[in-house]
């Protein structure tokens, strides 16, 4: 089948043998799972990926594209990486941007599924639906950036690469997959690829899909591009996400010192204005993006001449969360994470947890103190080598707490094993719900519930069943955004989100979806993710927060207190709003 916007096929590659096969995807499936996270989840269910250890040869990892990829719609050059997570044991869907998505779609595939395990390090090449396995011994040990540089010499300019760094090779539980300075960062998809001895996936091709209404699509694309230059995206364009830091600090919702506090003494030094005052600053964009949110800053010390990309989340996790007040140390730490190929949020969360364990006398590593930038850098180095404490740190905070004992799981900053992003749950209680119920764990990208907290529709420090119902809508919007796929930074330009995204999909595919159909599609996507997790062994006890965040107030905001009963009430309301049982089970599991 080949219809508008789709090739109608996905390729399965067995890394063990290098052989591949093609399978068709029906239009009826695309109507339920249009691309990206949704399509990846569907394929994992179809291949029973929930049965297998994510680091086993039998596991599956999907690169999923979407009908919008290759279209003139701004921010649409994105791909999803979907697998079972080695960090959480649950579904993991991470997104990244740029030319890999465009070339992957041109390879003639709507998705690429990788299974098996190569005997030695390899490169998998997908070229116009043909696949090859090449040796990667010369790349093993290289950083993601150096790997891509080497591959650019080996292949033509029409080839694009998704690669792992040393962390993926060593199967560190929160290793990333990288492409052109962007990362499918959360949940350890890099470790899944590394466990298969796949250092790089290379895509190229000349197969293009048709659009149902080209003139209409081009006109709509022009409108969206114009809007993307406007005030709705100005914060991202002019300042970057780092601008969040001062706001969160002022509202006492900036997690600090492993969630012991909600504000940070040196926050002004981390503002985009302060960082830019003492450093060279450059901006860049992903392919096919008109927003240009990427802000890179030079590092003033050391020998590196590479600028480092700074986002709110890596500043938060490597700065306030570890109480490190030196921006230079945080920039260096962020750069080192990129070189190793590890998720900055999980890295910072795990190190902050270890720092508190030292403080409490549970770990005999006296050098690892809150606020010590040199210790932060040393800890990251140990994660890379696996020496000493690094052997524990590379497990992530949940698994580390199980080893340490002393009820340290109570202050391990994670949900379902995924370290919590920079939103203090006690001060942002709708977001607290979003974290608790998230299918991939604590996650600000799959739930936008903080938007409710940052509005006049809710009291952010008093979560209720009513706000829980509003949280469902933000999760549904994200499910569509992550499946079409469009950048979330574009969301502010839509006035009638579901109706307008239906229009975009209709222009590409020729379908006749409306607002209601998109809302139903979103519900189906979330159901499929939950279905996968239930098959993996999910139970309701997983939908919670660390004990630290329940039943006691935030140290610097006495009004920020979340009771267990309140959270449970919100979770039940959320589950019922989704049409599940109050405990969170699907009435029937039919997502396949």
């Amino acid at each position, binding site marked *: 089948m080949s219809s508008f916007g789709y090739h109608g096929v996905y390729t399965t590659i067995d890394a063990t043998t290098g052989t591949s096969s093609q399978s068709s995807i029906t239009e009826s499936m695309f109507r339920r799972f249009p691309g990206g996270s949704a399509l990846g989840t569907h394929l994992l269910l179809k291949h029973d990926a929930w049965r297998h250890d994510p680091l086993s040869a039998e596991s599956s990892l999907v690169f999923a594209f979407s009908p919008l990829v290759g279209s003139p719609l701004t921010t649409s050059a994105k791909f999803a990486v979907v697998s079972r997570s080695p960090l959480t044991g649950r579904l993991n869907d991470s997104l990244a941007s740029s030319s890999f998505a465009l070339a992957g779609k041109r390879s003639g595939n709507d998705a690429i599924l990788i299974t098996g395990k190569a005997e030695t390090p390899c490169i998998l090449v997908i070229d116009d639906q043909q696949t090859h396995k090449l040796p990667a011994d010369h790349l093993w040990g290289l950083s993601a950036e150096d790997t891509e540089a080497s591959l650019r010499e080996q292949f033509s300019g029409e080839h694009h690469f998704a690669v792992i760094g040393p962390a993926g090779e060593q199967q560190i539980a929160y290793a990333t997959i990288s492409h052109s300075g962007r990362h499918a960062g959360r949940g350890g998809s890099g470790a899944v690829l590394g466990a298969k001895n796949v250092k790089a996936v290379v895509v190229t091709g000349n197969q293009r899909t048709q659009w149902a209404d080209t003139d209409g699509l081009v006109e709509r694309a022009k409108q969206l591009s114009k809007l993307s230059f406007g005030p709705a995206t100005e914060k991202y364009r002019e300042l970057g996400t780092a601008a969040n830091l001062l706001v969160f600090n002022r509202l006492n919702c900036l997690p600090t010192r492993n969630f012991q506090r909600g504000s940070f003494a040196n926050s002004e030094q981390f503002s985009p204005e302060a960082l830019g005052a003492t450093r060279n600053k450059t901006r860049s964009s992903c392919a096919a993006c008109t927003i240009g949110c990427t802000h890179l800053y030079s590092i003033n010390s050391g020998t590196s001449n590479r600028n480092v990309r700074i986002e709110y989340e890596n500043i938060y996790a490597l700065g306030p969360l570890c109480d490190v007040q030196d921006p230079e140390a945080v920039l260096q730490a962020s750069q080192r994470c990129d070189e190793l190929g590890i998720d900055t949020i999980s890295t910072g969360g795990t190190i902050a947890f270890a720092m508190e364990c030292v403080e409490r006398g549970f770990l005999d590593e006296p050098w690892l103190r809150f606020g010590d930038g040199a210790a932060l850098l040393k800890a990251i180095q140990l994660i890379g080598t696996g020496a000493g404490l690094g052997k524990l740190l590379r497990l992530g905070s949940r698994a580390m707490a199980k080893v340490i004992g002393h009820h340290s799981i109570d202050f391990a900053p994670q949900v379902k094993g995924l370290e919590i992003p920079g939103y203090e749950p006690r001060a942002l209680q709708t977001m607290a719900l979003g974290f608790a119920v998230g299918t991939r764990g604590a996650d600000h990208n799959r739930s936008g519930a*903080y938007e409710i907290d940052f509005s006049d529709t809710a009291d952010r420090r008093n979560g209720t069943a009513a706000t829980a119902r509003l949280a469902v809508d933000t999760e549904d919007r994200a499910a569509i955004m992550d499946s079409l796929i469009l950048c979330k930074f574009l969301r502010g330009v839509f006035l009638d989100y579901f109706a307008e995204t239906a229009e975009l999909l209709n222009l590409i595919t020729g379908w006749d979806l409306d607002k209601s159909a998109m809302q139903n599609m979103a519900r189906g996507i979330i159901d499929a993710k939950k279905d996968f997790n239930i098959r993996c062994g999910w139970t309701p006890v997983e939908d919670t927060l660390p004990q630290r965040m329940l039943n006691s107030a935030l140290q610097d905001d006495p009004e920020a207190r979340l009771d267990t009963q309140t959270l449970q009430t919100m979770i039940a309301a959320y589950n019922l709003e989704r049409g599940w049982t109050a405990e969170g089970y699907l009435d029937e599991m039919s997502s396949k």
Partner: protein
Amino acid sequence: MFVTIEYFGVPRQKTGVSSDSLSFANSPTSLSDVLTEIAGRHTAFGEQCLTGDELSRETIINLNGDQFVRSLDTQVVNGDHILILSTDAGG
């Protein structure tokens, strides 16, 4: 009465300051009057923060670090801190 305005994100960039201290003859005073005063001081920001008689979609306001408000009829009193920030907290 005096109120303190704290600017974050794009509003800070547009105004070029991190805060203002404003005085008003009457207490309480409406948020509408406060924003009119701010718009007079900071033209570039003033053009963006209001859409007609409403707060623009791109701007959000918080009172004293507690509640978020959108209604321009909201009354502010002596000593209030008005936080003005960009929409879309995520990232």
